[in-house]
């Protein structure tokens, strides 16, 4: 009886170990932070895989107050290929919060997303797998 319990325990431990090692890790899309002298940009991509993507953008001033501005322009480019795609303009959902949808980033690799609000521009590197 005791032996069966021990064997069961060993199987449970082995299964737990295998789960820890083999559990598929979803590549969590991290928020990317960039700053200019006046504004703070936080871009969170919907995915870190190549394909159609969308960005959640929060733009505040350096004290955290939502930035004013009617439209934000997003210019994705792939520096290794020397390839840029047409800029995308998005309006605010609420002050300082923008949603940029339907961004076609079809190639894996290093991308650079230039985000500009009026005269303030930042370049946010984005690595797609």
């Amino acid at each position: 009886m005791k032996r069966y319990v021990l064997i069961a325990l060993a199987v449970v431990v082995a299964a737990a170990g295998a789960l820890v090692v083999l559990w598929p890790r979803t590549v969590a899309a991290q928020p990317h932070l960039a700053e200019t002298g006046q504004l703070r940009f936080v871009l969170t991509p919907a995915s870190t895989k190549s394909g159609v993507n969308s960005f959640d953008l929060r733009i505040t001033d350096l004290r955290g107050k939502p930035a004013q501005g009617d439209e934000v322009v997003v210019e994705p480019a792939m520096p290794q290929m020397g390839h840029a795609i047409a800029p995308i303009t998005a309006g605010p959902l609420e002050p300082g919060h923008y949603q940029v949808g339907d961004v076609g980033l079809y190639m894996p690799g290093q991308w650079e997303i230039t985000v500009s609000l009026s005269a303030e521009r930042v370049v946010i590197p984005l690595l797609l797998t």
Partner: protein
Amino acid sequence: MKRSGAILLLALGAILGIVTPALADGAQVGADIHVAQTLGGRDLTVIIRRVAEVPGPVHVDVVTHAGSPPGEITLTARAAGAQTSTTKVVLGEKPGFYSGVLTIDRPGPWELAVDEATIPFVVPALVASPWENATYGGFIAAGVLLFLALLFAVFGKPGLALVPTAGMVAAIAVAATAALLSPGIPPVAAPGTQLDPTFDNVNDPYQRTSATDFSRPPVNLVPSMNGNDLVLSLTDGSSGRPVDDLLVHDSAFMHLVVVSPSGNLRHLHPIRTAPGEYRARLQAPEQGTHAIAAEIARRGGGVQLLRSQVDVAGSTAVKNDGKAGLATEIREAGRPSTITAGFGAKDLQPWLGMLGHMIVVGPVTGSPADAPIWAHVHSMIPPTPGMPDKPDESVAAYGPNVPFTYSFPLPGRYLVWIQVERDYSIITVPTVVDVPAKGVAEK
């Protein structure tokens, strides 16, 4: 009971002996960054010393050269979302090293501002590689399992002791495999030199990418004058976007050689003032069309030479007046020629990591801007026992002979300048070389 106690102690000793190397492991990450900067009227070398701990201090040395006016400069370290750290460094009359200390609070992409010049740099994170973790983890697990096996044996369960023993063998196999295979695992793409650095990839550098070729397109250079400042705009040759990914190579973001109409040379290191915009001041410029050539390296690798010309409003020429004994052996075009400059005493300093630099422009018929060949030849620092591998400018112990070998590709008359550093002053020795055509006897 006494015996089991002794066995327990031995087992504990074995575990500690296995575990300790993991704690004693302290990999060295990063290196000093040397960047030459032509900042206004000063020629500076900014040295960002290796960051030992994060958060912690970063030491910045500013090396002034002969002719640098004394004064105060402001050093600022900043990163998105991080506390900005500022210090002032007073530069004295005497050329040499002046230091400042800044504080950084996280690994990642940072920017050091020296007055209006900005130097992007990466503060690396100390991250153990997965195979290191497998090696240490395997040995630690083996130690723990050995201890368990001993416990079972001591308490009279030799049958049960087999289970942890088998586990121990497996753990040692994992650790030994990881340790043996790790030297053959290709390095991952480095943030900063191959990938754009972000806080995420600096803190987790072992993510694999599918890319294998990291090189980037050629660059267009557009020069213009703003007062006495030469402003260089760099744009990507494929997308037209500003080029803001220059790497430090040979201790500068950009090696800019400017040749005046009368054949005088300046070797400058423009400062980065905005994305894709670099500036260098031409002190007391000469009137006329200047030939310029910029050497740059983009992220992903490969050095590019960008040539252009710019009209400068100025006055009379300031001659390159360096003197050296030259021993030349010029062979026909396409064959290696040697030029050895002798500077008398063995007290030359490394400049831009090299013993000497030789700039070759030619064959000249009219303006240097029209010369088909433009070359930058290095004389390496000879490896000397007892000396550091990559000495900085404080080591004045090289020379006196500075040899160069270059195969002049075309016959004709070349303008040649040899540059070395002594007493924190750059000596520029001008000379002219006539290269015979193939089949024409020497002399």
